[in-house]
């Protein structure tokens, strides 16, 4: 395949893809006088409409995506993104409404927000919810700030936040941004939180424990109630990372496990598309005790009409402008309405069924460090293949040759050479079986022709890229000189 040039490389003066209506107000000759005007924008492209359409169409063909096939990225929940959701979000009645419009002219938008808040509370078993956070990580930051604000009001913000060693990297990062020092809690041989270590570290100086449940191994924290008790006994809060809610919807509710605050990723569990890395949405749901600290504004109902309440003295303030990624929130609402209570329960069950089917089908061919029962995902390792000098990266790259997207490899850190597989409820048995066959084939290839794997991928528009060179002397933009 020919590589698509950078737009800047096909740019030339005089080409056009855009024309403005001519100025219909009397032209002010000196309109620019006195303004710091730039002569030109050096290097800024200038191309034709056809060139743009082909440029992006060709580039699109160099992307793998859910619409093409299985995308088993662990902890990312790459499920099908219903097309009706896109249509709904694009309805002019929503897409054209200005966030600062008088509230009586955007009652529809406000009802959408209120409905989704209420649904999140029902699904998670919590008391109140904010939709403002733009993504999971911002949800974590918001949640930790709520906890800090509550402790502060009691006179002592406390010093530490506990995070299990199996957690995703955003957890410690968000805790740190909230002004806390992070301490790690060990995982036991079962891959879940080590209760003794937790009890030992859980003192009156600890503000909260951040758990992911089911955790990044896909294992449900069976002792979650006990964990909550240990944390609460010292006046701490239990934060739950809801990244893996897809395993739980309609089956159990964090609020019923004494979780005090959690964030939910609408772009995982609730089918809003990942868009190549955003936008997402990370609603935060809390128990009553934390409600006063939620970001402003809050959507309230006053005499039959919705309004925005800014008068919240204890609020941590805003975490972003306006009310969250509204377009994303709309898509989540469409998903909830499409599926209903039984549908939401079914996605969890089928996600777990699919993951266990893969696990059972591959546990001879790939090493399972942790053998505890898992829910929506399972974490293999490259231990068997290492004998032949083949790493999880080689396996991943070889999968690409077979037209399948690789699993997650960058974590959990407690599994070396991890292959974290999350098929989601989306996949048909046919696609699952195909994936399983491919994985088995690769396991065989690792024995017979490891070099083939180490050189993979072979079929792609580019082959293995030199990430070291990219990091050693970063080239982060196009410059005329280079071409």
């Amino acid at each position, binding site marked *: 395949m020919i590589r698509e040039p950078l737009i800047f490389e096909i740019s030339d003066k005089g080409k056009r893809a855009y024309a403005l209506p001519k100025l219909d107000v009397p032209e002010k000759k000196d309109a620019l006088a006195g303004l710091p005007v730039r002569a030109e924008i050096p290097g800024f492209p200038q191309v034709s409409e056809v060139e743009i359409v082909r440029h992006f169409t060709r580039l699109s063909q160099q992307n793998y995506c859910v619409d093409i096939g299985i995308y088993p990225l662990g902890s990312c929940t790459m499920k099908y993104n219903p097309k009706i959701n896109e249509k709904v979000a694009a309805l002019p009645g929503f897409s054209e409404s200005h966030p600062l419009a008088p509230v009586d002219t955007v009652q529809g938008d406000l009802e959408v927000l209120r409905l989704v808040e209420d649904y999140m509370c029902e699904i998670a078993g919590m008391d109140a919810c904010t939709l403002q956070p733009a993504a999971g990580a911002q949800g974590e930051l918001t949640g930790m700030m709520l906890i800090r604000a509550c402790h502060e009001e009691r006179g002592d913000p406390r010093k530490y936040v506990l995070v299990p060693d199996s957690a995703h990297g955003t957890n410690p990062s968000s805790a740190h941004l909230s002004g806390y020092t992070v301490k790690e809690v060990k995982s036991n041989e079962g891959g879940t939180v080590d209760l003794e270590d937790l009890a030992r570290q859980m003192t*009156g100086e600890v503000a909260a424990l951040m758990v992911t449940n089911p955790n990044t191994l896909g294992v449900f924290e069976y002792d979650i109630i006990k964990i909550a*008790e240990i944390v609460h*006994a010292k*006046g701490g809060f239990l934060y739950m990372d809801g990244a893996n809610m897809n395993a739980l919807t309609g089956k159990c509710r964090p609020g*019923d496990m*004494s979780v005090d605050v959690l964030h939910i990723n609408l772009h995982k569990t609730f089918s809003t598309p990942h868009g190549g890395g955003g936008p997402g949405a990370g609603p935060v749901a809390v128990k009553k005790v934390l409600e006063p600290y939620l970001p402003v504004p809050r959507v309230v109902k006053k005499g039959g009409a919705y309004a925005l309440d800014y008068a919240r003295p204890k609020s941590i303030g805003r975490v972003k402008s306006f009310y969250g990624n509204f377009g994303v929130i709309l898509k989540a609402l469409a998903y909830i309405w499409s599926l209903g209570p039984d549908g939401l329960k079914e996605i969890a069950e089928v996600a777990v069924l699919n993951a266990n089917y893969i696990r059972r089908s591959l546990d001879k061919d790939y090493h399972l460090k942790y053998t505890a029962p898992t829910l929506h995902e399972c974490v293999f390792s490259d231990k068997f293949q290492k004998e032949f000098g083949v790493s999880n990266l080689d396996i991943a790259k070889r999968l690409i040759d077979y037209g399948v997207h690789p699993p997650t490899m960058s974590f959990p850190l407690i599994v070396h050479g991890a292959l974290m597989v999350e098929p989601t409820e989306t996949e048909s048995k046919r696609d699952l079986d195909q994936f399983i066959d491919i994985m088995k084939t690769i396991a065989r290839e690792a024995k017979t022709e490891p070099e083939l794997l180490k050189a993979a991928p072979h079929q792609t528009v580019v082959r293995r890229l030199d990430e070291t060179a990219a990091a050693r002397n970063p080239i982060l933009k196009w410059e005329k000189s280079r071409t």
Partner: protein
Amino acid sequence: MKQTPFNAHHRKLGARMIEFCGWDMPVEYKGIIDEHLACRKAAGLFDVSHMGEIHVTGKDALAFVQHISPNDAARLSPGHVQYTGLLTPKGTYVDDMLVYCIHPEFYLLVVNAANTDKDYAYIQAQKGGFAVALDNPSDRYSQLALQGRKAVAILQPLTDVALAPMKSFTSAFGKVAGKECLVSRTGYTGEDGFEIYSLDPDPGILWDAIMEAGRPHGIQPVGLGARDTLRLEAKLPLYGNDIDDTTTPLEADFKWIVKFKKGDFLGRDVLVRQNEQGITRKLVGFELVDRGIARPHYPVFLGGAPAGQVASGTFSPLFKKSIGLVYLPIGKAAVGTEFEIGLRDKKAKAVVVPTPFYKRDY
């Protein structure tokens, strides 16, 4: 016989030990009056590790506490403490207790040593459909009470908890003498002071550190003997004497712990009725006018006729006279009412007086 973690300390101090509901406890060290006055004038340190601690946890923790307690636990935010009763369906006392809101889904109940097992069994029986977990880790808890006007001055250097800003009936976690503790501004003496809970397996240092820090302030260890005279001067009830399963909070002059408006709770119906119809008897304080000391169970006579018996009675080390508590019929219970108490051979004159006998002046 159970021993508290401070047993050796007591023996080293030459305390007179007795068995108190299964525990080997100090009744006095230097003498009740000394200890009593030290606590009133400076500070006293009490080993009350025999008290019972019960955990109520889980999603319905608050709802459950509301069910078993007549007081309104919904008013508690984390760090706040509430005095209440544990009532039978008849509205009478199973025990009185403190409710600590540690977290909206974690409550600590502190009950009397004599009743711990009975209370825990009773509370478990109430669990029904509530999504709560119950636990009775009483034996793992140690508890010291530091009471007296010098309490803050003595404790502050030993802890990272800011004591001065602490309101009465609040609690906070922190280190005391390097040990993780729950420090609570509560007590059973009528003085300012703190109760210090610890789950540390080896809390001995707490006693030593507090005694050491307290020496320049005139601290003294106080045994169960003075604990009783102190609480009585402050008119703090003792289960078994002043309250029991035949008496209700309304009769015991604790109407303020009964919040009818909060919704249903054990014994509510009966108490509502009693409240409407009015109580027939009431717990009041008395002084003995004649010489002698009135003690519990001594017979009481109104106009010559038997009228029950003394609930609590003792010699007040502070006022140097005999004081006590007694249930008298409404109408005969007003301050100034005179009646008689049978002291072995003679009947001694007593008079109803305003309570509490002692109110702290700082």
